[in-house]
């Protein structure tokens, strides 16, 4: 009996909304728990990794935290970081710290920033050594700072439990000698141990015509198979549905 109670309790604890690092509303369906786990490491790769990095930074930097003092992000080793695009997605540029050229001191820079900011977008300039990975992962866990890794060595970071990538990217608005880029439809997929199985995905405008990120509702999601085990909305049999009468509420 105590085991059962414990199991019940752990189920309750797991399903309870944990404190997460916020992301843009459009990205919430993709991420398990609707946000990033504090202290976790997120890998970004492939085409569109830069936009994903911008979106993660924008999600954190958009909110000043509960007391208006949070929402700081660090960007280390990404000299081409599109601040304008991040601002378009909702980021506050005044809460960004950019370290464009950390050189070989990048582990020290990340260690210094990890104590202060909520998310660090990091492009390691070299293959990260085991000692640096251990030290920075531990610091990030301790201070609840999310490490978002991008660049050529993003895949060489052991212990990455979540990876984000873009598929089926298609730009809109450009013709043969006319028009202008207005937006891109993508499918964002999250995989890894934090998003088990085939992963979670969502179709998004990244970016939309106004620079924001929003769900792409022009394409219908493929129908999902539902098991034929029982009714979709079970209703206790024999109990009539509760109908409130207007007179009882004293309106009429």
């Amino acid at each position, binding site marked *: 009996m105590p085991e059962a109670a414990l199991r019940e309790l752990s189920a309750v604890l797991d399903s309870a909304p944990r404190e997460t690092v916020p992301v843009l509303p459009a990205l919430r369906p993709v991420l398990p728990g609707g946000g990033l786990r504090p202290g976790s490491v997120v890998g970004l790769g492939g085409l569109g990794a830069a936009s994903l990095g911008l979106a993660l930074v924008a999600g954190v930097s958009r909110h000043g935290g509960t007391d208006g003092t949070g929402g700081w992000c660090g960007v280390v080793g990404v000299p081409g970081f599109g601040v304008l695009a991040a601002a378009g997605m909702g980021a506050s540029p005044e809460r960004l710290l950019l370290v464009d050229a950390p050189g070989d001191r990048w582990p020290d*820079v990340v260690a210094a920033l990890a*104590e202060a900011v909520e998310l660090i977008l990091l492009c390691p300039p070299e293959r990260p050594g085991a000692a640096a990975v251990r030290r920075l992962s531990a610091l990030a866990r301790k201070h609840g700072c999310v490490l978002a890794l991008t660049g050529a060595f993003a895949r060489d970071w052991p212990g990455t439990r979540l990876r984000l990538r873009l598929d089926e990217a298609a730009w809109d608005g*450009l013709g043969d000698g006319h028009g*202008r*880029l207005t937006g891109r439809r993508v499918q964002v997929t999250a995989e890894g141990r934090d998003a088990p199985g085939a992963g979670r995905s969502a179709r998004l405008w990244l970016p939309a015509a106004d620079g924001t990120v929003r769900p792409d509702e022009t394409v219908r999601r493929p129908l999902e198979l539902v098991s034929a085990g029982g009714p979709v909305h079970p209703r206790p049999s024999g109990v009539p549905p509760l109908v409130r009468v207007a007179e009882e509420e004293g309106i009429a």
Partner: protein
Amino acid sequence: MTRVLVAWCPDWPVTAVGIDAAAAGAVVAQGRIAACSAAARAAGVRRGQRLRDAQRRCPDLVVRDREPDAEGRLFEEVVAAVAELTPRVEVVRPGLCAIAARGPARFYGGEEALRVLVQDAVVEAGHDCGSGVADGLFAAELAARSGDGGVVVPEGGAAAFLAPYPLSVLDRPELADLLRRLGIRTLGDFAALPSGHVAGRFGPDGALAHRLARGEEPRPLAPVRGAVDLSVRGDFDPPAEQAERVVFAAKRLAVELHEGLAAGGLACVRLEVAAGFADGQVLRRLWRHEGLSALAVAERVRWQLSARQGAGDEAVWGGVTWLELAPDQIVPDAGRQESLWGRTAVTDRIARAADRVQALLGHRGITRPVLVGGRGPGERIVRVPVGDLAPSGPAEEPWPGRVTGPAPAVVPGAPPSAELVDASGATVVVSARCEVSAPPAALVLRGRRAAVTGWTGPWPADERWWDADAARRRARFQVTTDDGAAYLLAVEGGRWHVEAVYD
């Protein structure tokens, strides 16, 4: 009426940048002559002239940019020399300082004696000088400039002394021009006008100029005590090999420094930490101070040393022989208001992290982006080092020809070159009339070739054509390729480069 003695160093901006007094030299500010040496003046160079005209009149003119900082710094020597005679000196501007003459004149045996004494003191300090005594600052300055090294204008004689001077000495060109057209050419003529009418016709500024012309005082002198050196210094013998020892001493020095500041009711905005090494190198860095504790100052010293330790290996380190803490930008200590609800704690947290990164990478190592006005995506962002003031640029003004639509995700600092070719393999060119030679077919970037699936342009941008050095004339294109990427390309002078990537 106060008796004022003025010590005036001729052509101070020229002296300050290190041009020899005998050589023909000039300093320029915004393309015009700000000041010139006597030799240059003899050759026809004048203040306010365009540099080109000045060089035509005097081809061997030595030209430097104006350095207001150096002017102020170097003038400290002159102020110190004058302060030897009488302690309260007012620096009117670099090149001109004033003292109240009555007391010192009595002490040194007369105004003429004092005048000569001041002049000699400054000349002994190594600078040419004129000094004059008169009623009021305005007359005293002219007295210092007149004759050979200045004169003493007797008490009550200021109006008579000023009368023959032209109106240009008032330094009010518009007023002088107007008066000249009214037939008034000297200060004496101007002073003869009834003051009520002058105030009615020329307003408060005209009335002030009228008071000056009559030898009356527009404002009293406001002398300040010369700045006291509050910096503290500690020596290490033998040289401190370990950072711990230096940091420990730094804590003691910081306490000493704070006591010195507090005794004068002062606070400093920034703190300069200088550490001298056994190999002769000096490591200097400015830190924001604004109410740091002694412990926090010691911590900054540690960061500064660790940056040095990390950069080279232990052998270069050699040990610290001395450490100096010097307050910079001293302000009256008005007390600090701590804000509520932990906001300070967070800004402290961010400032601490930023300070640590700056200790590692230098002041420009960590920046904050500021949105400003511009056309290209790279031009609309300025990176300001943390701790510096952000520029207030015109952000919201319309920028015709700005790249619209969603902003690109990658904006490289140095745009990589690329090649945009048409179906026949020839580079696409844009004519002066903005005609594209042929539709682009492929983009070659870092040796990789991708077929163009969509393109648009050219969007011409002809910027700063009035400034030959900064002028840029280019045409922008947006291009998508078959690998799913989109680019903002720019062609400038026939060469293509990737201005931004819509990654």
